[in-house]
């Protein structure tokens, strides 16, 4: 662990010093903020909130090739593994919730079957967090799910905006390495820096408007109302667009499919793409039988995964309280409201 400060006026030099990395910095687009690697941007805009598509896409891309297959002249089959390039990347402006989400995703892609594609990128990724001095969304509720606007979980560095400078806390070796690329830019901290940082953190906490009370009671509650008609009522407006899951920083479900480029000789590739539990065919067997046949069972799956199953598996929520699914759902299905009603259901 290493604590320093850097003047905002020196920030561009730091970014420039990171030549051996692909650097992603938030860029304003007409649809919102995006993590961009266009090399033009050398600072984090003061009105930056958070990216519409969470940083997961840089570690677990929406589409990726597993391998290519090709029939060879003696009718054998050649498989060519397509692994992510060996290229280290740095992501600036990772909000603490999104950092915690990466940590949750690590649990899924690790374990007894390690996902090589995920870990190739993950190991080459340095996450530079930015504490929120203002909640990026009116729907932020990180405090209710064991996070905070200055959580360090999953991050390599946490920056805190102190006006003319950042408080820089390097949390991992990867983080320290990033500081060592331009050591002269970083200053020793003073007690005043530390005081200011604490103040910013506490103030931010007070600005969070939304709360999901008693989240740790939800696992039992969801179990208790699993078979009730609660879910029918809550899900009846769902359009099955999948936005709530595609843009969720912790959702990891995917599909695997083959794409054929040529039939004779056979040539093509196997790809993985993001998928969602909100699509009916996600679970539909070839026979037409579907264990989650309606909106109710699919909404229940989304929420039970985040607030029951993940807790049973890893003792943590699979929701980091970023509020994206609330802000972006076209029909206003609000996870805080649904879960609050779930808690009170039958009372």
């Amino acid at each position: 662990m290493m604590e320093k400060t850097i003047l905002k006026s020196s920030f561009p030099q730091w970014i420039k010093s990171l030549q051996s990395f692909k650097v992603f910095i938030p860029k304003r687009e007409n649809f919102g903020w995006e993590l961009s690697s266009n090399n033009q941007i050398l600072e984090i805009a003061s009105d930056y909130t958070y990216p519409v598509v969470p940083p997961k896409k840089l570690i677990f891309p929406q589409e990726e090739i597993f391998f290519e297959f090709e029939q060879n002249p003696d009718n054998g089959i050649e498989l060519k593994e397509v692994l992510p390039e060996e290229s280290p990347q740095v992501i600036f402006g990772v909000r603490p919730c999104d950092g915690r989400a990466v940590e949750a995703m690590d649990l899924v892609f690790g374990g007894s079957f390690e996902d090589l594609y995920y870990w190739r990128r993950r190991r080459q990724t340095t996450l530079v967090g930015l504490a929120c001095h203002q909640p990026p969304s009116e729907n932020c509720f990180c405090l209710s799910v064991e996070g905070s606007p200055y959580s360090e979980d999953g991050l390599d560095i946490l920056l805190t905006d102190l006006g003319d400078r950042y408080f820089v806390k390097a949390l991992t070796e990867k983080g320290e390495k990033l500081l060592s690329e331009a050591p002269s830019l970083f200053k020793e901290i003073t007690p005043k820096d530390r005081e200011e940082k604490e103040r910013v953190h506490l103030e931010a906490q007070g600005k969070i408007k939304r709360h999901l009370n008693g989240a740790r009671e939800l696992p039992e509650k969801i179990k208790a109302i699993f078979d009730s008609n609660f879910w029918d009522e809550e899900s009846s407006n769902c359009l099955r667009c999948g936005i709530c899951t595609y843009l969720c920083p912790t959702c990891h479900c995917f599909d695997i499919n083959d794409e054929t480029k040529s039939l004779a000789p056979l040539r093509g590739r196997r790809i993985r793409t993001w998928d969602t539990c909100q699509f009916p065919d996600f679970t539909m067997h070839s026979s037409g039988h579907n264990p989650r046949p309606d909106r109710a069972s699919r909404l229940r799956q989304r929420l039970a995964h985040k607030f029951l199953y993940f807790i049973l598996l890893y003792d943590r929520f699979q929701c980091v309280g970023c509020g994206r699914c609330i802000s972006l759902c076209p029909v206003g299905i609000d996870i805080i409201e649904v879960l609050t009603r779930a808690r009170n259901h039958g009372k």
Partner: protein
Amino acid sequence: MVNNVYLPRIGEIIEIKDEVKGARPIKTFRVRLTDGPIFSFRCGQCAMLSVFGKGESMISISSSPLVTDYLQFSILKMGRVTSALHEMEPGNLIGVRGPYGNGFPIESWKGKNLIFIGGGIGLAPIWSVLQTALLQKDDYGELMLIYGARTSQDLVFRSELQQLKNQIPVHLSIDVAEPGWSEFVGFVPQNVLDKKPSPQNAIAITCGPPIMIKFVIKALKDLGFEDDQIYTTVENKMKCGIGKCGRCNIGHHYVCKDGPVYSWAQLKELPQEF
């Protein structure tokens, strides 16, 4: 070098047998791996088979782990992948990755009577246990098979079943009467009630269509079997086979990894999403 879990090994189909013809055809495939010996596995485990250009399907290994020359799969033609498999000929190449799933806890069944209850293609995973128990007959008590299908032409492993009758009691059934059929007519659960296997020191292993399993379990309970004496397998749509793609779950269990084998004692505690 870390193993790439998504990269299949190449398997060569060495033998294909037509089990069932007609609208719902079933074929049995024997496959060897082109790059070396087959992997070791447990009864009830599965493999992801690929037809390159079509995709992958999870299929139970129906041969016994004691047979190491080949892997055997019995496959019902359904959609893209299974139809492509049905088009194949010996010598054709497929992808194989696995083994996946937990398998049956057959070590803990030593000394017990085993009652196998199957319906249709559901005989495939059972077959692996049955063959193993036959090869290690001294380790187990009495064996019995109760097996049924819609018609006599829908029964798989027909010639093997005839031979099996010389070794253990085999009770076949078909759903509706046919000329020349001398065995039970009716559904598998009814045949179970008719044959009344004793729960004494016994384990019942049942696989088949979900509706059959449901009523077989009920029949077994009526005969006095305890929940932890009944084992079954769960089938859910699968893609990754390793607990990551998120679709095959029942509650916090990923059937591909934590299943597909469950005792009824375990399964009844989980959400019934299968």
